[in-house]
């Protein structure tokens, strides 16, 4: 069952002089068994949504429903910590939360808090490490001795090891070099395809969204601007640009080419798709 936001508002510092309305009546659904992209400019409320999903924050109004139950319902108080395990949340720059003596122990921290047995922890750590592509020979090193990219992987593995039904990652690729970016996002896609869980990737790069997500939710200043599959979202690239979001360059290129009458009618957001479309155009298949 999905995660459902129903008319959720969130105000930081409610009833203080520093009140700041971060979310204003947002409604959307995070579907099962796919990768959902959550995109919006800095300050549009992405991280706030992430923390509402696992119950760290409580909505000022509205409800967040996970698996059919309102996670902030008083009757489910006992399940509060269960919700942290059901909805795994990887914070932005998660490497800053590593603390154990060895990477192995750090990845096992979540499962240990869940009360898993030692064998179970070992099994989960091994699996998580495989999913994120962490170099296994470094499992017994101190997390502080790793490179930036390896630290990031270790931290993500720490959440994957809890085997959450939903995995939410706040800007998992922020601050990594292009190869590291692609590699982590590819690993996450493989993870989703293999486990058939629900994965949410928060980002402000349309390029990443186009390449790795199945469904996209676009936020604008604390509200949902648009929500749908890739084709719907990218049908109007210029509107997205005006939101301050980068449209994939290839989409922009095809859009501009169409303005000159090239006539590629299908939505294009990856270079491969553009290649196919252009080849078909040249070979005359699409000519009307």
């Amino acid at each position, binding site marked *: 069952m999905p995660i459902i936001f129903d008319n959720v508002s969130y105000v930081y*510092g409610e009833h203080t002089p520093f009140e700041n309305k971060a979310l204003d009546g947002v409604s959307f659904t995070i579907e099962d068994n796919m990768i959902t992209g959550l995109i919006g400019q800095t300050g549009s409320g992405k991280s706030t949504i992430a923390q509402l999903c696992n119950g760290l924050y409580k909505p000022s109004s509205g409800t967040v429903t996970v698996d059919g139950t309102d996670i902030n319902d008083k009757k489910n108080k006992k399940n509060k910590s269960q919700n942290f395990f059901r909805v795994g949340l990887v914070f932005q720059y998660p490497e800053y*939360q590593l*603390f154990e003596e060895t990477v192995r122990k750090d990845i096992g*921290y979540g499962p240990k808090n869940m009360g898993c047995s030692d064998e179970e922890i070992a099994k989960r750590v091994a699996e998580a490490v495989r999913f994120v592509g962490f170099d296994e020979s470094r499992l017994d090193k101190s997390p502080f001795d790793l490179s930036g990219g390896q630290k990031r992987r270790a931290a993500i593995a720490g959440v994957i090891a809890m085997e959450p039904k939903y995995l939410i990652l706040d800007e998992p690729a922020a601050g990594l070099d292009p190869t590291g970016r692609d590699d982590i996002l590819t690993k996450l896609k493989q993870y989703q395809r293999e486990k058939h869980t629900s994965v949410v990737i928060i980002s402000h790069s349309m390029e990443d969204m186009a390449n790795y997500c199945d469904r996209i939710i676009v936020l604008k200043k604390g509200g949902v601007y648009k929500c749908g599959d890739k084709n719907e979202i990218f049908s109007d690239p210029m509107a997205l640009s005006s939101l301050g979001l980068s449209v994939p360059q290839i989409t922009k290129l095809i859009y501009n080419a169409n303005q000159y009458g090239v006539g590629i009618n299908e939505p294009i957001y990856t270079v491969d798709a553009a290649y196919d479309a252009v080849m078909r155009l040249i070979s005359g298949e699409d000519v009307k």
Partner: protein
Amino acid sequence: MIRDITLGQYFPGNSALHNADPRTKILMAILFIAATFTASGTLSFIILFLSALVLFIVSRISLITVLKGLKPILFILIFTTFFQILFSRSGELLFEWWIIKIYDSGLISAAKMIVRIIVLVVSTSVLLSYTTSPIVLTDGIEGLLKPLAKIKVPVHDFALIMSLALRFIPTLLEETEKIIAAQKSRGANFSSGSLMKRARALISIFIPLLASAIRHALDLSEAMICRGYRGGDGRTKLRQMKIRFSDIVWLLASALMFAAVIILNKYGLSDLFGLFGA
């Protein structure tokens, strides 16, 4: 939320006290502290109270703010008053019921105690916190300690350490909040479980926080070196401190207040009436 904790509240403004030199205000605060501890006569306490009242009025800080500042010490205030009144056993008996005996000396010493504590808190917080930003305050401390530099005390470095510490408090608080949220999301439990378990949960906050503080320190020191920082010698300041005529007036007035408190300690309220009666 953690962020709401403020360490040293500063209320920007344009009053005579806001504009006074920080060194003046530090010296005034020292005089006020000294006066509150030397005062013993009733007259002295009246002078003390009126002087603190002047500070409060001149600063144009709202009464609510000052009362809020007194809230943390409310308990001590009530507690000491209570004991002073109940356990004094001298002077005139005013009231008696069961084992409770209240003497006039008890009431008087309780009143003095209250004035002492209120003046101490109000004068120092108005002078050093409400009307002086932390950065300006460290400048003032540095200025006052400057003579010590002659005997090789690293005054400038101490002042820099202090202002950096103040600068990074909000940053570290924000990071603490994030780390707590992240560890909670991994199932860390800070409020229940055995002592051992809770201690472990705290470690999961302290270590990342320490790492982050060290990271900030390294970044900052590199940035400072790149911008040519070379210690205090020959360094000029953005905010030049200048002693003006008004600063001298403030200092003289405070010194006068201190002197008056000492001299009047010998005399009680009755002497004042005697003065007029003569």
